[in-house]
């Protein structure tokens, strides 16, 4: 079984996706699914900057183009350096031909208002003034096509929708350039999903290699989720390697100093084998094993080893193998209470917790069986001696307890009160970004990016899903109208403001034709010719306007030749396997989210995707779920403890280390300035399971009176667990570090309270003469 499990490690798929640690809440999962399936997360943005004051924007643009030329399939499928066409004027001219389809009643009313001599004069004088500037006549073809600036509104929509990318850009020579003209953007699309660790690594290596070809005067920052995937995986791997080495070395030291018995090696082998088997069984049952779960391996080793140590110590004591029977019940209940703490995770809505529970329970049960049924058999067959006498750690003497007992209990109560006060100061942090263990250079590059390209952050999105594009576009128009009635229209970027559905465009085109009657056209021509004379323009200077007035464009004509429009449609309309998603962007701020979440509830196929909303939903889910799970864990542990001890007072005594560990582990968080988060809560529940064992064993020892080395066993159990948990304090990844801190403080305080507080409390609860008992 062990060999098969070891071999299976080579083909087991491991994952580092943090999403498995998120609740199955519909809002959260829908947002995560959307971000996964849409192409937003599979983009890499390269921010290029000039490093020398002498270097020009021209050089920068050349560097962008050269870099874009060198990048290509299979890792890069699309490259965007700016506006898609090299001929912006031609693009705009082409777009203006669609204006009749895009103008509704409101816009036509505004056109009507311009039918005065003053308005036409003012417009033509504007064209005249433009000609006073060097290069002012470059825009003349557009002015001739649209002397009234009718299309300006549509062009502003293009500009606003382009800016909705979340970057503060200006367009220079068709490239995305920063306002200081010293930085340029290159946006890349890749088929590598963020969750693909190996693919992300290949992608980054390819990009970094290509970036080496940049001139010395140009530097580059890579901004991408892939960088986080790779760096998180690297940090996690490094942490696992380090913690494994540290834990192994410490275990070896404990073995060398504490046991000096070859057969004791079996105790250490049992949890290692159990981990191997647990990984394989988990992979068999759930398909994939998360690095987070494996990261808990060192801790699980500490938990599972306890039963072996207890059996080993009692077998080495007077009475030998027969002692196993005496401690069997406490070991079984100890294992069951710990398993029950993990079992509570099955009630969680987070898939990662299910995996953790499965992994832990398999490991614990395997260790329990080995400790009770295989270990005694192996220990009996050989000779050996524990180097530490079983009474080296024993209950404090009666005289000591008489003198110091009340003092210790008083100090413990004081500590609990102080800890309770600190516990009230704990901040719960549900922001998912705290689980990001990316190193400084990745975060610094992102900070530089924010400084150069604006700090508005990623916008939130309102998403409409449907099978038929025209139907979704139609709904999107209604959603847009409702949204702009609630929030600032300039901040709600929707394709509806630029490109409505076919039905609306047809209605607009008909309205346009009705508007431009021959009489009205003649009247306008007359006005225009008069103004032309006043400004020195030829009478036919603006004839192109009339040439394009009536024909417009066919409704069914898809303007795929207009790169600007296609570029925007790519961003606002996403095709997926279920049909189409039409996306609108708005600032990820509470006021917008609140109002627009209300608007989208009126559409069965619409939802909001926002980082803030995601955090809020996560916080809501966790704040409801975690106390429930904690209650279930505490109740199950209490019931099992009561089942063993069959005495309410003793049960309360056995739970004293549990209370201590919770108050100390979570009370220390505000003292260290750290927030409480979900992984810490999970670790807290593990602590509850473990310290309840110590309580049960110590109460058992107080009742039993026999010197079979239970105090020593509990001490060794705590040490081995602390080795596993303490090694996590050297982890760089915030999740592993948080878990390590909670476990270390919780186990240490739980152990000390079990050893020092339970005996005097036992004396207080069970006066002399009443402590004799029957097994």
């Amino acid at each position, binding site marked *: 079984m062990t060999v098969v499990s070891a071999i299976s490690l080579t083909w087991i798929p491991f994952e580092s996706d943090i999403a498995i640690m998120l609740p199955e809440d519909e809002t959260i999962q829908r947002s995560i699914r959307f971000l996964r399936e849409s192409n937003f997360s599979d983009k890499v943005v390269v921010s290029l900057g000039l490093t020398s004051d002498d270097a020009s924007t021209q050089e920068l643009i050349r560097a962008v183009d050269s870099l874009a030329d060198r990048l290509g399939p299979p890792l890069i499928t699309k490259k965007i350096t700016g506006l898609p066409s090299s001929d912006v004027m031609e693009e705009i001219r082409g777009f203006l031909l669609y204006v009749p389809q895009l103008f509704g009643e409101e816009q036509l009313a505004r056109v009507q208002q311009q039918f005065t001599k003053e308005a036409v004069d003012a417009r033509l004088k504007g064209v005249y*003034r*433009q*000609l*006073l500037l*060097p*290069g*002012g006549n470059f*825009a003349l073809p557009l002015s001739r096509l649209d002397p009234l600036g009718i299309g300006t509104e549509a062009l502003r929509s293009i500009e606003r929708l382009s800016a909705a990318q979340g970057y503060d850009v200006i367009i220079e020579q068709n490239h995305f350039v920063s306002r200081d003209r010293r930085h340029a953007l290159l946006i890349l699309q890749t088929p590598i999903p963020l969750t693909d660790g190996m693919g992300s690594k290949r992608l980054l290596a390819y990009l970094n290699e290509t970036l080496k070809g940049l001139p010395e005067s140009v530097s580059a920052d890579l901004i991408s989720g892939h960088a986080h995937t790779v760096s998180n995986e690297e940090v996690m791997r490094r942490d696992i390697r380090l913690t494994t080495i540290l834990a192994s070395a410490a275990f070896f030291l404990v073995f060398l100093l504490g046991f000096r018995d070859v057969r004791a090696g079996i105790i250490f082998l049992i949890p290692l084998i159990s981990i191997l088997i647990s990984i394989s069984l988990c992979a068999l049952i759930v398909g994939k094993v998360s690095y987070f779960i494996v990261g808990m391996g060192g801790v699980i080793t500490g938990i599972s080893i306890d039963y072996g140590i207890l059996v080993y110590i009692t077998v080495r004591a007077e009475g030998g193998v027969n002692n196993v029977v005496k401690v069997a019940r406490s070991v079984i209940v100890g294992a069951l209470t710990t398993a029950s703490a993990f079992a509570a995770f099955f009630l969680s809505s987070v898939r990662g917790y299910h995996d953790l529970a499965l992994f832990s329970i398999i490991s614990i049960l395997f260790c329990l069986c080995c400790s009770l049924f295989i270990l005694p058999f192996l220990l009996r067959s050989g000779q050996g001696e524990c180097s530490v006498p079983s009474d080296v750690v024993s209950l404090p003497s009666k005289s000591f307890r008489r003198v110091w007992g009340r003092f210790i209990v008083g100090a413990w109560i004081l500590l609990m009160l102080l800890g309770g006060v600190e516990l009230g100061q704990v901040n719960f942090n549900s922001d998912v970004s705290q689980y990001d263990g990316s190193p400084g250079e990745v975060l610094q590059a992102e900070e530089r990016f924010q400084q150069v390209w604006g700090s508005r952050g990623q916008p939130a999105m309102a998403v409409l899903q449907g099978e038929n594009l025209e139907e979704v576009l139609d709904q999107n128009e209604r959603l847009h109208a409702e949204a702009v009635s609630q929030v600032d229209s300039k901040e709600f970027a929707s394709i509806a403001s630029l490109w409505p559905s076919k039905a609306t465009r047809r209605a607009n085109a008909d309205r346009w034709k009705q508007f431009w009657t021959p009489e009205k056209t003649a009247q306008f021509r007359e006005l225009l010719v008069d103004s032309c004379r006043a400004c020195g*323009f*030829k009478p036919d200077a603006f004839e192109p306007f009339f040439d394009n007035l009536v024909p417009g464009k066919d409704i069914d004509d898809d303007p795929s030749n207009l790169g600007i429009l296609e570029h925007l449609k790519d961003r606002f309309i996403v095709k997926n396997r279920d049909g189409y998603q039409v996306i609108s962007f708005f600032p990820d701020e509470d006021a917008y989210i609140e109002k627009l979440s209300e608007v989208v509830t009126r559409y069965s196929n619409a939802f909001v995707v926002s980082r803030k909303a995601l955090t809020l939903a996560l916080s809501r889910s966790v704040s409801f779920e975690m106390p429930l799970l904690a209650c279930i864990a505490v109740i199950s542990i209490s019931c099992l403890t009561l089942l063993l001890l069959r005495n309410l007072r003793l049960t309360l005594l056995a739970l004293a280390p549990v209370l201590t560990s919770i108050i100390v582990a979570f009370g220390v968080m505000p003292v260290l300035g750290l927030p409480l988060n979900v992984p810490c809560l999970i670790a807290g529940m593990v602590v509850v399971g473990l310290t309840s064992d110590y309580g049960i064993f110590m109460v058992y020892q107080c009742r039993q009176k026999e010197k079979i080395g239970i105090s020593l066993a509990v001490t060794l159990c705590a040490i081995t667990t602390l080795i596993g948990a303490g090694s996590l304090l050297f982890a760089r990844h915030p999740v592993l570090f948080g878990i390590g801190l909670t476990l270390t403080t919780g186990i240490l305080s739980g152990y000390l309270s079990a050893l020092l507080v339970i005996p005097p409390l036992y004396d207080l609860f069970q006066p002399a003469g009443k402590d004799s008992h029957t097994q």
Partner: protein
Amino acid sequence: MKALMTLEPMRCFRALVATLLFACFCALTCESQEVATEFLRDVTENTNELLLRLEGQMSKIQTLQTDFTQEKRLAIMEGSFISRGCLFLDRPNRFAWHVREPVRFSLVVDGDIVRQWDEDTDKVMELPLSKNPAAQTALVQMKDWFSGAYHSLMGEYEVTILARKPTSIRFIPRNNTPASKVISSVTVFLCGLASDGAQPTPAPADSTAQSLKDNDERYIHQIIIEEKGGDRTEMTFTNTHLNEAIKQDAWDVRPRVQ
């Protein structure tokens, strides 16, 4: 032997002539060494080297103030459209274009802000540079041509040296570049003679200084832009001052022209 006697004086004579010719050549060479070096440089210096040299010289320009005459021949206008005024450039991001005639008009770009005034509306309009494409184009045009960074334009333009003294260069946009959609050619005349052979207008203050400027390749005398549609713009610059402190009021929109 007789034959030998008659041959010897001939040889002596030839040697004498050769020596005299060599001496004359050496003397001439020494006297015109400077001219020869310049001639040699003109012959051997290729376009690349010339542009690099100009770029090196003009990169030292921090400020520029000059009067301009702009003549546009446009398809939509009857006759030539001539405007006169002055321009100021303070690298990297300050630019002012003040028109005196035919109408008073000012445009000042200061960093990311554009301020514009005209006598007709008598209003100052302030906009971000990114929202004013006309100002962006004007700024880019002036910065590109006055920066002298012509070498870096070689990727986008095909560059031809039309003349050496005074230097004139023609830039023709390469196919499929953004400029190629609008511009047919841009010709830049540096110091000295104008396109029609006339001398640039001398500076009224100091003729010696003007003479120096005539030989200084950092000074642009004229720019001619020919567009695809047949429109043509000629900008002639006179009374040019480089790297001199620009008065603060140059960056004010209204007071300057009132």
